[in-house]
């Protein structure tokens, strides 16, 4: 049972991981467009693209390697993603069956109303109440997540629910159990949707990206359900609390994990005591501004240290300086050509490794 679920999980994680790296780039860009002037945006995009071009090959590799690493079962990353899309509902149903105990084990205080609701309805033995309950869970999830692109996500979730009901109509007890599991499952699902799609909700314009969101987020649920099973109850609650109020800032908290990773001096903060690791502490990096243009540094900027003297500046100003005399404004030394790029590369990789890390914490059984 464990190995089964892991197999499913491993295939679930893959699309998530691969899509995440891309989504992240998209997120970043969309995010910035709100803040930056057009000229600035162009420059950034240029830098991004060149950065992606340069380390794209490594990124792909690291994706594959890291998914393979902890979970030891994975096929073609890109290929499975599509496959996954089609078989998804049934796979999820199987998961529910398999994981019932896990989920009730990992049930957190914040989940309890939901599961309670589910079990009551299970006792009722009524088909209509099932759809009702799934509705209620959907609506509650909708109300609980104000900032996400509700329509698409909750819509797809209700579809999943109904499909699950249809398949199990012949056996009410199974349905009841499955439903209880589904309710409990959807609660963490909500969180993951919240957190993962909150930033993507700015992508609402991309109509066709919604299916991706739904499937991309659901595997993430599996991903997170695992740590919850394994590690502790309050862990999950703390985590949920930590992310919830900051849904909007999710893009910033995302990189923070990798930031911690890229600074090995405080690894214990990364692996250490549950909740805070998940971004509670470092959700908002102290917003500093570029000393050159006085614009706020975003994450990419603040993790960008082009000179060994540690002088930070935004990518835009850095580029501008490179076009001219190429000396660090902080120490007046010539920028060493590679130092900036290496830093950026490292950064990109650590982003890609983020999920791998969270997986590896869980690798037991």
């Amino acid at each position, binding site marked *: 049972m464990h190995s089964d679920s892991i197999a499913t999980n491993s295939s679930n994680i893959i699309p998530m991981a691969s899509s995440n790296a891309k989504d992240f780039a998209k997120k970043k860009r969309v995010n910035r467009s709100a803040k930056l002037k057009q000229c600035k945006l162009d420059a950034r995009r240029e830098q991004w693209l060149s950065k992606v071009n340069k380390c794209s090959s490594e990124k792909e590799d690291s994706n594959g390697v890291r998914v393979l690493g902890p979970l030891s079962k994975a096929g073609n990353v890109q290929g499975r993603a599509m496959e996954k899309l089609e078989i998804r509902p049934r796979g999820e149903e199987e998961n529910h069956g398999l994981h019932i105990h896990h989920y009730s084990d990992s049930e957190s205080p914040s989940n309890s109303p939901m599961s309670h609701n589910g079990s009551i309805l299970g006792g009722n033995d009524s088909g209509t109440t099932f759809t009702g309950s799934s509705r209620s869970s959907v609506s509650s999830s909708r109300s609980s997540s104000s900032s996400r692109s509700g329509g698409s996500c909750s819509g797809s979730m209700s579809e999943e629910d109904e499909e699950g009901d249809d398949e199990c109509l012949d056996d009410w007890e199974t349905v009841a159990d499955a439903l209880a599991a589904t309710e409990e499952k959807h609660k963490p699902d909500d969180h993951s949707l919240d957190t993962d799609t909150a930033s993507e909700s700015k992508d609402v314009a991309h109509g066709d990206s919604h299916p991706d969101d739904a499937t991309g987020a659901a595997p993430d649920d599996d991903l997170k359900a695992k740590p919850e099973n394994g590690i502790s109850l309050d862990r999950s609650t703390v985590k949920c609390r930590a992310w919830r109020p900051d849904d909007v800032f999710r893009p910033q908290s995302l990189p923070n994990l990798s930031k911690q990773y890229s600074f090995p001096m405080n690894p214990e903060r990364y692996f250490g005591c549950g909740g805070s690791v998940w971004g509670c502490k470092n959700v908002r990096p102290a917003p500093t501004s570029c*000393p*050159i*243009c*006085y*614009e706020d540094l975003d994450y990419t900027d603040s993790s960008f240290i082009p000179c060994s003297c540690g*002088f930070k500046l935004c990518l835009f*100003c850095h580029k*501008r*300086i490179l076009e*001219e005399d190429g*000396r660090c*404004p*902080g120490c*007046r030394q010539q920028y060493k050509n590679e130092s900036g790029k290496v830093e950026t590369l490292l950064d990109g990789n650590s982003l890609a490794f983020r999920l791998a890390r969270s997986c590896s914490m869980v690798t037991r059984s």
Partner: protein
Amino acid sequence: MDLSRVHKELRECNKDVEVSGIHIALKSDSLTHLVGTIPGPLGTPYEGGTFKIDIILTDGYPFEPPKMKFVTKVWHPNISSQSGAICLDILKDQWSPALTLKTALLSIQALLSAPEPGDPQDAVVAQQYLKEYPTFVSTARYWTEAFAKESSLGVAEKVQRLVEMGFPEDLVRSALEAAGGDENLALEKLCTA
């Protein structure tokens, strides 16, 4: 040019004028032409004076240094006594975009208290500084009194008026200097000369 940065710089700089004594004002409507004011450092011949510095920001600012020169006449080895041009590395090749108008003005203020006669802008002043230091000090103090004091702020107008009477400007200036800024005395000198 990064106008928003200039805006912020002006706001920041003028917020603590009381502490630094350094003030930046707009010369015209545009942000490209400014006037900075620095107090003469204490314990120097420039003490008590208020020195105005003309600041022109190029399109490349802050990636290019601001163009600065003294409007107020100064007797200093690294400042042209004629044009007010400043010989200071940070205004040339050692400029860094991390510097600001305020830090540049502070550097100029520091230059006033620590002349570098080895790398002069005004060779005459530098020679005097090296060979007749007491004379240099008294001349510098006199120039401060004459051109950088509140009471001498009207010098430009006085010069203007006397020049309009038909006297050459350099004579007018030296006469005003000799008269300690007294317009009538200077006029008398000019007439008797």
